[in-house]
């Protein structure tokens, strides 16, 4: 029995190696390259290593947070709490450091606070069957409130250098935070693309009923995903506090929308089942590039937001036209 047509179709679609295929799917790469080219050609300062590293550094906070958000979004969920959790973990780590715990412990406290708030969301979403949107919105408000309550609204500052270096130090010329972020992307990329857990994350997001019928521990998968997102927000809090040598309860307000935007620009669907860490990396870098370009070109502040919006629109528009052309 020879379904000829199907055979032909498959060859056309899947004859290439996997990298080509990934790029093929990530048509947003066109937008990314376009923006980079434009900046490279019009702004002499753009293609300096100091500048490129500064983009990486500036992207590190949103980057680690967006990685966690990618896991959540691939399951079809959403985590609106990340910005507040960054602030809350940051001030908790800061309070601990000011009480003279060792730096390692301070870092772990930051990450643990994030993971804890992630577990709260996980519990509500899996066991109580509540909507991730509402739960994480409630945690957005609660974590922010807690950050104010524990600090009395004050800025916590003056941390040991070892801690500050996490966010603001360099190894050679490379910012530590950028290295950490790249590490997070690498590990997360492997986990999501190559492991059984990653496959389960996609399955849960692609068709939750089918995943359950196939014996996948849906609840556990969802729970882990929110904990990852929380823990990475905690790490983000540590990076931010270290970078500024201070932790403010108001920090990272609105970060969640930017992180989610990066994930969606990177090709994920809020309906779940779609998305990749590579895509998110592109999304994060596109946002980083736009901000960098606006600074380098010294765009008038009134115009900044408009142009940010227009460029994101343009980049995704290219993407969608591109997909249309390919016959998506």
């Amino acid at each position: 029995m020879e379904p000829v047509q199907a055979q032909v179709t498959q060859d056309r679609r899947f004859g290439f190696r996997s990298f080509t295929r990934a790029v093929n799917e990530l048509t947003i790469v066109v937008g990314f390259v376009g923006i980079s080219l434009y900046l490279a050609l019009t702004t002499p300062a753009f293609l300096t290593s100091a500048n490129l590293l500064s983009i990486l550094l500036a992207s590190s906070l949103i980057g680690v947070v967006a990685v966690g958000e990618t896991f959540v979004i691939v399951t079809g969920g959403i985590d609106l709490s990340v910005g507040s959790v960054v602030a809350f973990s940051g001030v908790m780590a800061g309070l601990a450091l000011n009480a003279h715990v060792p730096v390692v412990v301070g870092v772990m406290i930051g990450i643990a606070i994030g993971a804890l708030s992630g577990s709260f969301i996980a519990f509500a979403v899996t066991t109580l069957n509540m909507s991730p949107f509402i739960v994480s919105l409630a945690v957005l408000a609660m974590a922010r409130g807690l950050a104010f309550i524990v600090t009395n609204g004050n800025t916590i500052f003056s941390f040991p250098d070892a801690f500050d270096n996490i966010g603001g130090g360099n190894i050679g010329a490379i910012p530590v935070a950028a290295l950490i972020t790249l590490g997070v992307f690498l590990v997360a990329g492997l986990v999501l693309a190559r492991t059984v857990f990653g496959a389960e994350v996609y399955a849960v997001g692609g068709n939750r009923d089918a995943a359950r019928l196939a014996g996948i521990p849906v609840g556990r998968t969802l729970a882990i995903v929110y904990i990852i997102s929380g823990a990475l927000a905690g790490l983000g809090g540590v990076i931010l506090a270290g970078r500024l040598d201070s932790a403010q309860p108001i920090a990272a307000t609105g970060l969640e929308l930017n992180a989610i935007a990066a994930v969606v620009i990177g090709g994920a669907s809020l309906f779940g089942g779609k998305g990749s860490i590579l895509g998110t990396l592109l999304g994060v870098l596109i946002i980083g590039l736009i901000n960098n370009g606006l600074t380098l070109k010294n765009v008038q502040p009134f115009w900044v937001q408009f142009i940010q919006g227009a460029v994101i629109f343009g980049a995704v528009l290219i993407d969608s036209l591109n997909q249309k052309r390919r016959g998506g």
Partner: protein
Amino acid sequence: ADLIGLSVATLANPFFQGMTKGVQSGIAAHPDLKLINTSANGDANTQTNQVTDLINQHVAALILNPINANSIVPVVKEANKKGIPVFTLDRGAACGGCQVNFLETDNKALGKEGADFIADQLKQRYGSVKGNVVDLEGLLGTTAGDDRERGFATEFEALQKDNPGLKLVARQAADFDADKAFNITTQLLAAHNDIDAVFNGNDDNAVGVVRAIRQANRFKPIGDPKHIVVIGIDGTEQALSSIRRGQMDATLSQNPVTMAQQSVNYVEAYLHGDKSKIPAHQFWPHLLITKATIDSAAAKSYGLWGDEISH
């Protein structure tokens, strides 16, 4: 006791915490007053709603720290209609006589003095006012951000007229957000290796700048010809600490605690004392604080509020 309603614009910034603490301590000093305390989270509509709720509770007086001088007018008029006296703090209501007293920070003057400070430093460095300056504005659309920017920009342009070597290499909005200031500065430092000074819309901006300079390994002690002058506004605890450590050059401190206490005193006078002593409008003084002056008697008597409120 008389109920006093307070609505501050936000608590997102130590300055407003200082203001709240000032009102609280002021009220505590008057046993016949009791406080209802709200914060509008930076949103004019929320503030209007909260003030309406306060009016509905028949407060005896309102202390308002408006988000916007115009937007607050309708509820101030509403309060007037109900006979509730209104006292404004830091920012007034744009209806003149509708408030009993308006205690104000002169934001334009702060911006102007920031420009002057930078000009002084450059003159010390180069013998004349020249060099490359970055202007990191505060949050667009806020009175503090906009007026300080206006004060700075006007003065800076005036200075430029007389001093052609004075350049503005970048003007960006850092939104009173330390992280945003950090990112912008990192990128500006990568693009320009000859920045002499950075003006900041507030101290949180300045803190981000200081950290970015350190991160980029561009920090040189004050006095070094390569030192980048950083000046902020407010006088937060972190800024004071940074000035003591010689990382940041100066802040233009305005004392919200004493300002707010004064406002409560006026309320008390209005309700139970001598109304005639209450001025309709008053600029609350501010003070330039540098490493040289931070421990001076002048600074002590003005009050290093940033240090006070966290203890």
